[in-house]
């Protein structure tokens, strides 16, 4: 880990910002509900890169950054399970998962 001084923290943060923006485009623009979920996963990963980068460049002694990253991964797993169950249920009822065609509050 001697080479870590070569890469400033800003490099990691730039990667994180760009990944977040890519995920945001996906959430804004896709019609398919599962594709929106993919965008959300990208945004969560961008947040995780930030947490771990600040943990490391903040000295690496206090472990809050990694604990937060573990919590984010846990919540992402739970969210994916619930969201995909909802997607299956919606598909069963509406025969589509394009979110601009699902506009009934009560099917």
């Amino acid at each position: 880990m001697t080479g870590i001084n070569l890469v400033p923290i800003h490099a990691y943060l730039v990667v994180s910002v760009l990944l977040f923006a890519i995920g945001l485009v996906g959430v804004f623009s896709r019609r398919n509900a599962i594709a929106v979920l993919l965008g959300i996963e990208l945004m969560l990963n961008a947040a995780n890169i930030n947490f771990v980068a600040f943990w490391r460049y903040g000295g690496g002694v206090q472990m809050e950054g990694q604990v937060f990253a573990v919590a984010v991964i846990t919540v992402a797993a739970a969210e994916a399970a619930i969201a995909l169950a909802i997607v299956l249920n919606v598909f069963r009822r509406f025969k589509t998962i394009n979110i601009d065609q699902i506009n009934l509050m009560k099917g």
Partner: protein
Amino acid sequence: MTATLGQYLHSGAFWYLFAFVCFAAGVLIPGLLVVLSRNLLHAALWLLPCLASVAGLFLLLGAEMLAAIQILVYCGGIVVLILFAIMLTQGLGHADVRVTNQQLFWGSVGAAALAGVMLHLLSLQMWPLGTPTIPGDVTGRLADALLSPYLLAFEVASVVLLVAMIGAIVIARAEPE
């Protein structure tokens, strides 16, 4: 010149930089393809190299445990779950006629504006960061942190997972006719 270049190549610093560039490209290019692929199945499969490269960035930062968790949970769990959902809803290779909604332009503009603002804030160099030390036994300290000061968060996370599992079973269950 060649001697210094050789020393540079052998110092390990070059390879650290090289690995960082590879992993950064491995995050961003598949990330773009996730968002832009017309076929949803391809988009979900492009998520795989993207998440694996994020695990590589974690390794470069010295968080080995998180890299392992990333591979196991994201690449092994969430991507497979998403692939199952895609197969169950629209099947193989059936590309939609129109994969984006009307907000593609303004959504891209908004995301680019947000990225521009954040990059501008980054360029202001607001973080006076010392030289990073070698963290030593990272995984052991992560375990200590999870089981003593953050024990409550750890237990709440397990309850969240249990509730999500039961909730997913209940929601996705076939309705009694």
